[in-house]
Structure formats: C-alpha cells, structure tokens
C-alpha cells in the first residue's frame, strides 16, 4: 500500500468521519470505531502521523485555523478511538470516544509537560509531542489487538 493512495483515500474519507461523528447513530459510531481501531496495515496510525505533519506544515506556511482545527480534531478523534478501545471497553461507544479523548488530551499534556521540562515547547517540539502521543496510543491499540488475538 503506497502512502499516496493512503492520503487520497483517507482525506476523501475525512469529511465522512466528521459527518458520521456529528450525527451518527450508535451503529455507525461502532462501525467507525471498529474500522479505526482495527488499524489495518497501520493505516490510521500512519494517517495520524500525516495529520501531525499537516499541522506542522500549516504552522510553517499557512497558519490557517480552519486547516489547524479540522486536522487536529481528526487527529485527536483517531487517537481517542484507539485509547477508548483499549481503556474503556466496557463502556458505551459514546463514552469510549469521550473518555478516550480525555485520556488522549492527558497524554498530549503529559508529553508536552515532559518536553517542556527538558527542552522548550516550540514548533518542532510540538511535532515531536504529536508523534510520541500518536505512537503511544497506536501501540496500546496494537497491544490490545494482540491480546484479543
């Protein structure tokens, strides 16, 4: 699977993800969650790295809040699905998403705090924070997949 294909496909899918999140029924949310957390060929993990890169490029070149907010929300939701799937399996899908978002924000804050303690939180450090946070949540999701068989 090439990265080019992945980008086009997933960028095309992103409005669908947003729309589904906005007015999804429970079933659609479960389906979306299953697709993301299955993370076939690390598709969504790579996609969240690409979103992190997009956030970085936006900061350097465009400084557009529209690009920033939409890329960030999709980035957070993908990783929230990962963490919600791992940590809150007994909860309803809606709670998995909400609590997963909270835990992912905590993770972002924690990595940011560590980076701030040892270095500074400039733009490049932010990119590192986004990559670390995405990697941790992706690994946790992979581990859960491994446990589940």
């Amino acid at each position, binding site marked *: 699977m090439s990265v080019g294909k992945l980008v086009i496909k997933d960028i095309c899918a992103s409005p669908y993800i947003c729309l589904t999140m906005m007015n999804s*029924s*429970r079933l659609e949310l479960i389906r979306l969650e299953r697709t993301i957390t299955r993370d076939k060929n690390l598709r969504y993990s790579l996609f969240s790295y690409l979103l992190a890169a997009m*956030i970085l490029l*936006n*900061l350097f070149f*465009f*400084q*557009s*809040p529209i*690009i*920033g*907010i939409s*890329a*960030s929300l999709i*980035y957070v939701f993908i990783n929230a699905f990962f963490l919600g799937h791992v*940590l809150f399996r007994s909860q*309803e899908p*809606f*709670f998995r998403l*909400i*609590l997963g*978002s*909270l*835990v992912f*924000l*905590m993770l*972002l*804050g*924690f990595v*940011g*705090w560590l*980076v*701030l*303690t040892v270095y*500074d*939180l*400039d*733009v490049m450090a*932010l990119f590192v*924070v*986004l990559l670390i946070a995405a990697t941790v949540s992706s690994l946790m999701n992979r581990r859960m997949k491994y446990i589940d068989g």
Partner: protein
Amino acid sequence: MPLRYGEILYLFLIGISFYLIAISRKEEARTIWEVLNPAFIPALFIAVFLLFGILLSSEKTTYKLIFVIIISILLHSFFAIIFPAGDSSGQQITLGRIRSIYDNFEPLTLTSPSKPILSPLYEMFRGDRFQAALSVVLARMFSLDILRVHLFFVPALWGIFVPVAAFLTTKSLGGSDSIGALASLLISAFPYSIYFGAISVPNSLGFIFFFCSFAFTLQYLEARNSKSLFLMMAFSFFSFLSHFLTGIMSVSLILLALLYKSQKGEEQKWVLARAIVSIVFCASLLPLSLVYFKLFRANSYAAFSLEKLFELPINEIFGLSLFGDLIYGSNLWTLVLVVVGPALVLLCMIGLGFKLRRNHHAAPKETVTFAFMAFLVISVDFIVLKLFMDKLPFNEERLWVFRDFIAAPFAAQAIYTVSLLIRRLSDTDSLRSLSLNHLRTLVKTHALRSLSILAILNIIIPSILAGWLILSLNVAYPQVAPLQTTQYELDAVKYIEERTDQKYVVICDIWVTFAGEAIVGISNPSAYYFDENSQLGIALFSNMSHEPSPEWMLSAMNLTDTAVAYFVLSEPRMRSPEEFNNIVANIKEPLSLFYVSPNEKLYVFSYSAPLQF
C-alpha cells in the same frame, strides 16, 4: 432517530442563547449582568425547562448527554465570550505565565526572593506548567492565538468531561441512566462548580481530573479490576500535576477507598472503628500537607491556629463551619443555594442507607458508603481549614466544589425519587375503585387529580429546577466587580507591541498589566510589564501620575535594561475624569504622545533614552 419537536426547540433556544451572549460582548464591562442581553435569561430558562423534560423522558442516554454537554459549555463560557480578555482574576495571571512558554522567552526577574531548598521540585510540578503545556500544544495545533485557546480551555473541557464524570459517578452509585443524565446537568446548579468551570486556572483543570478519579474510584470499588485501579491512579496523578489541592484530595480519597476495601471480612464491631480512623487519617492529609508546603514554595505560611476558636462568638463559629465566609454579607438565596445541595445529599444518603440496610448484598452499598465517607472527609477538612488554620494559600470555600461533585448524583437521585413518587400517586387511583353511582363526580375528581399530577411532573418540577439553575448562575457570576480589562486597553497593548522595534518597558496600572500579560506575557524582557504584585511597578505608576517626569521612565528603563518606556493612562481607572485630564495636561516634552484610543479614554506616552556617545 428523528429529533422530537421539543428537542429541536431546545437546540434552537441554545443557538439563540449563544447568539445573545455573543452580542452582549462590550468593550467596557464590570460584570456579565450589566451587559447581558435581557432576552438571554428567558431563553435560557425555557431551554433548561425543556432539557429537564427531555432528561426525565425515555430519550436515548447519548442524546441526553450531548444536550447536557452543549448547555454545560454555554453556562461556563460567559466570561470567555463576553469579556475581551476574560475575567480579571487568577486566569489572567495564569495566561501571563503561559504566554512566556508560548512565545518562548525566559521571564525577567528583578528581585530574587530566598527560595526553599525543594522549590525546583515545586516549580517542575506546579500546575500552571502542565496547563501551559496542554494549552500551548492545543494553540499550536489549532493555529490560534494562546489568548483565545486559554479563555475557552477550561470552559470547554469542564463542559464536556464533568457531565460525563457525573454520569459515571451516578451509575456507580446505583442510579439509572436517566438519573445519571439528570446529575450531569445538576452539577451546573452549584454556584462554586459553575464559577470554577468558567475560569481557566490550574485548580479548575485539577477539579476535572479529580472528578474523573473519583468516578473511577467508585468503579474500582464496584468492579475491583486492574483497569479501574490504573485509571483512578492516572486521573489522580494528573489532578496532582494540575494543582496540589485537587491532587492531595484525590490521593486522600484513593487512600480512603483502599482502606475501605481492605476492611472487608472484618468483624462488624471493628468496621465502624476502622472507618472512623480511616476518615480521620485521610482528612488529616490536606491540613498537614499545607503546613509542610513551605518546604516547597516560598511565601507559604499556613499553620494551625486556635485564634478563631478563642476569639469568635459561638454563633459565628457555627455559621463559619456551615456557610463559610458567606455569613459575612451574603443574601438569603446564596445561603439557601449553598445549603440545598448538601442538605439533599444528606437526606438522600440517609434514605439510601436505610434502604440498603434491608439488602446487605445490594451492589451500590459499598459505593454509597464510600461516597458518604468521602463527603465526611471533605466536610471535616473544610471545618479544620476554616476554624483551625490560618494564612492558607487559597480560600477554604474551594473545597465546596469537591462536595458539589458528590452532591449532584444524590440530588439527582432525590429529585428522581420525588417525581417517581408523584407519578405513583396517579397510578394508585384506578378506575376499578370507582362506584357507578358516583361515576360523574369521581371521573371529574380523577381527571382533576391526574391533571394536577401531570402539571407537577411536567411543569412545576422542571420550572423549579430551571429556576434553581438560573439562580445558581446569578450567584456564581459576580454581581459586583471592578471594570474588566477593556478592548481599548488590549488594543493599546497590541499597538505598542506592533509599533516598537526595541526593547521596552510599560509603566501602567494593574489593569493594563493584565492586558499586557494577555498579549505579551508576564515579565517579558523585550516587552516588560511589571508583575501585578510588584511594589516597584505600583510606585512608578503612582509617581508618574502625581508628577509626570522622564526621570521615572528612565529609572524603569535602567532597571529593565530597555531602550523605550511607555506610560499608559486610562480614564476609567482614575478616580475622576478631572484627575485623568489633569495628568494628561501635565505631561510635557520630552515625553511624547504615542497613541490615543478612538474613544479618547486611553493615552499612551513614550520616552526614549537619549543617545550616549
């Protein structure tokens, strides 16, 4: 599932409410009440009225919670939307510190007070660093200025996650989905909870994590699995990372849960004794940690004291332990609001206790007992801090937020039980009991009774609850306040920043300092505003106001190693317009006029150091 008409109307009213708040934004405002659009409160009342109806209906829990989250964000965003730089409180100081991390500069300190040996540890773990990290990460991700992100940071997080935590807590306490949804809204009916959800300070962030930790502590007691244990520990750690008060309280309650759990299987006579010892031990952690806080932070003088106990009359001591500082000049409604929640909690806890006594194996028995113990720990801590301690770094009433978190689920339980009892009243009078001879009279009576029950259930109860929530808003958001940071003060600070190439210092009052903190940060070496507590800054401003002279500006420049000095004077901050006009008239060359706000209420004068060869 298609939305019902009531839900569509509710969403429409919420949209209108957001719009009404947005158009209430003024460049000059003291309190939100003096600028709030008059149509806002009626619109909000009807929206809350409808929401209570929706919450007591059979609608899906997810929808109910989404509706609650939307209104919760609205109720906590007043400061952020209406005031140009948010509320003039700790949140502006926090923003000043966060700005230094966002703009990547090392704050310039003019004086270096002696610091305790463990202060580096405190500096590393202090709450505003964690909040700063998260705010800066989000601001950069969204590509927005840190001011906007900071103002909406806690209101948005509180609005989303506190109702969810309230729901989970209620479920663990044995409540149904409907009671959980009701509790998630009732958490916004407690004044202190509303206020702390509206300001972006580390303490508020700590409260959010504390509540999540409490919810998972209850789940741990209920399910006893390692995942709940991990989550309660993790949330407790982040609560500690956000603010030491919420962290210590969270650790106290986790210890209480572990002690409570370990007493299972002991003889009945020892259980009560052990419970009392556990409560005393956990309640002692906060006061003791405050005393030893001086090892970590400079200017920390908290100590035990019997002064209040010996000096105050007995009725004042009693009043203080129940109502805190509210006994000094608060109105009746405020006192009632502070009492209603806890009173409902106590009644409901006692009621549940009696109910559970009959059924020893009931699932929520442990969680209800633990919640009661946690409530006692918080109450004991409040009394100890209020009556037996002195020189605390915060006001003791902050502990009421913890109490409110426990109160909301029980208050919801009580309200739901009352509405259920009323509903049952209509069921007891069945048509089978009617006699044919008196059919007409009885049908009339029956109809009247059913109608009144319907009215109580669908009109009176939601009206009372909506009224309670609106009244809480009225108490939570201050009725009296100084003039908040104005738009033209922010514009002046931005103007100075944009038009100055060299390093500069600004001599101004505390209000312009707040505006400076919002735009350029605190103690920025290239755009220096004196700290809001700086005696030097106050003295320089006072000297410039009484005797405008380049001498003061030069000394400020020398102190801060800057090349330009500005003197900012704002008319509403002076005692009278005449005083303002006099000072402006007295300012002569070599000071030059640099900027005048469009409404001519603010003047900025500049002075550059003469070149030395």
